[in-house]
């Protein structure tokens, strides 16, 4: 009996050690190029930088990384290779907080970066680390409708009509969807409705939602590929992307009011220190404010923060419907009143009041 027990324990220990050994081997193999940069400067190995971002920024960062890598090599004599990760903003924040080794995060909302900070990875005060609350580019929420606008949707008030099918993602699982919800809230508030009336209007709006996808890209697909609903509440850059991918099939309607979405960027201090990449990471984010980068952002339909460049892209025609991407590249419609998150008391308050368990968003679905 004793012998039996002994051999049980022995094999157990053996299996554990072999598994961990296999684990380390795999890590050191995959991280080889990353660790070598810590050793010496004589050969100047490539520095690897990981940027964890949210869904709609793929095209933006694909373009930006190329420019940045060239810029950095030219000015600092150092090759950099940026690895991207994209996904729902909240999910990405969660993964970084759980140990995904990102040198920088470029997420959809300040609240998500806050989560990473709360986990102790980013030093407090990250919103003042870079200009303009650390958001080098902004966006807003607009409507995407089918060509010719068959349902005559021009503003938020049209979304609560009974014959309109709305597509928007679930604010509980998608960062972008919170902006949609808050923009709608702001509109009804501007109409002079009381809080109860606003809640009622929002309830009607979400009653019209045909598919409540879990992410922004999923919602776009439901609307564009699967032809669900009459109107998609979308990030401005997503809406323009659809216009570009499917010319002639969709139109953008800019509502009278919306919300200024400020994606937030930050260096993940703990990870960057560990990798020795703090300088590169800081430069990576700082360069987002350069004229060259601001142009790339504008070309990818993000509103640049540099007013001069911003003005280069402002739309001149007097219409709130955009049927195609303007040939002169001037796509920004300035004829819109934008509120921002401070109107709602910041993310913490907005979350607690609207999106927490049992808060307003849950209440509108209670029967």
């Amino acid at each position, binding site marked *: 009996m004793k012998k039996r027990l002994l051999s049980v324990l022995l094999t157990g220990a053996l299996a554990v050690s072999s598994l961990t050994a296999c684990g380390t081997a*795999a890590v050191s193999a995959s991280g080889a190029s990353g660790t070598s940069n810590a050793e010496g400067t004589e050969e100047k190995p490539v520095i690897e930088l990981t940027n964890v971002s949210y869904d709609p920024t793929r095209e933006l960062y694909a373009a930006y990384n190329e420019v940045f890598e060239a810029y950095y090599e030219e000015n600092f004599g150092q090759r950099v290779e940026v*690895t991207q990760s994209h*996904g729902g903003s909240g999910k990405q924040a969660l993964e970084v*907080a759980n140990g995904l080794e990102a040198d920088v995060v470029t997420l959809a909302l300040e609240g998500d970066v806050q989560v990473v900070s709360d986990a102790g990875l980013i030093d407090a005060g990250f919103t003042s680390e870079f200009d303009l609350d650390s958001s080098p580019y902004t966006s807003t929420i607009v409507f995407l409708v089918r060509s010719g606008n068959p349902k005559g949707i021009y503003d938020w008030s049209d979304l609560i009509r009974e014959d309109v099918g709305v597509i928007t993602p679930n604010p509980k699982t998608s960062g972008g969807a919170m902006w949609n919800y808050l923009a709608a809230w702001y509109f009804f508030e501007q109409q002079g409705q009381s809080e109860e009336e606003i809640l009622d209007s929002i309830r009607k709006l979400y009653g019209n939602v045909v598919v409540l996808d879990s992410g922004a890209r999923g919602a776009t697909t439901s609307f564009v590929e699967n032809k669900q609903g009459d109107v998609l509440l979308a990030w401005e850059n997503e809406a323009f992307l659809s216009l570009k991918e499917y010319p002639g099939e969709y139109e953008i309607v800019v509502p009278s009011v919306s919300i200024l979405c400020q994606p937030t960027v930050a260096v993940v201090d703990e990870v960057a220190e560990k990798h020795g990449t703090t300088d590169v990471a800081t430069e990576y984010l700082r360069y987002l404010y350069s004229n060259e980068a601001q142009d790339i952002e504008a070309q990818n339909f993000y509103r640049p923060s540099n007013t001069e460049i911003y003005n280069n892209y402002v739309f001149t025609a007097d219409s709130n419907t955009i049927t195609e991407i303007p040939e002169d590249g001037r796509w920004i419609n300035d004829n819109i009143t934008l509120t921002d998150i401070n109107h709602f008391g910041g993310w913490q308050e907005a979350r607690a009041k609207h999106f927490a368990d049992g808060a307003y968003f849950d209440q509108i679905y209670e029967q």
Partner: protein
Amino acid sequence: MDIRKENRILKWVLIIISFVFLAVFLILPLIYIIVTAFRDGLSGYIKGITDEYALKATGLTIKATIIAVLVNTIFGLAAAWCITKYSFKGKKILSTFIDLPVTVSPIIAGLIYVLTFGRQGALYKYLDPLGIKIIFAVPGIVLATVFVTFPFISRELIPILTAQGTDEEEAAALMGAGTFTIFRKVTLPHVKWALLYGVVLCTARAMGEFGAVSVLSGHLRGKTNTLPLYIELLYQGYDFTGAFAASSILVIMAIIVLVLRLILEHKGKKELDVSRR
């Protein structure tokens, strides 16, 4: 005579029902994938499957699958042997725990590893100083893959070993054979085909795992993106052709594995017939 006729009608009715069912639920989605993969013509398809990141993702998927299948084969053989050849307390609970992973939601499967090995988990502070990264790295992907295919091999072996009983092994043991000799000479020949089938099943499922891996991969492009995750990435990037082209790689890999099994099985049956004669 009557019965014969009735049976023939029944036979074809059943066959037709099966064909319609499979056509709608299995073959149509397949056709859909292939049609979409070629929506932009052959060149679009080739571009899709030879993309640098597609190749890296395929490589990672193959690597994770091989390691996971190996671990599960060792585990499956040990567990099946242990459960069928000996009697001990807690056997029922043990086999329930072995089955459990199949029924656990993939989301939960990913979540438990994040909670265990992640920065907030209990083991992080011991593993991190050693430089061992589990989640958001390849070992985590392998672990998740092992988890979702956990009982596949042992479940195939247990019924056969139960039916076979322990007489032959006991006889061999009495004649003085050691553990591995008994296993190789007596047990293995009986379970050869079941083992093969289990490995095939395990491989197929491991290649396609999405949910659990998605939770703990970190989606680092070119590093921890497996083929299924890469497909989702393309799909969300409006690259439907690329997404379905990448899916077709998986379909082809799956078909290769399944055909391989049919061939081996066929050969095995022939061998059996010859030796019987």
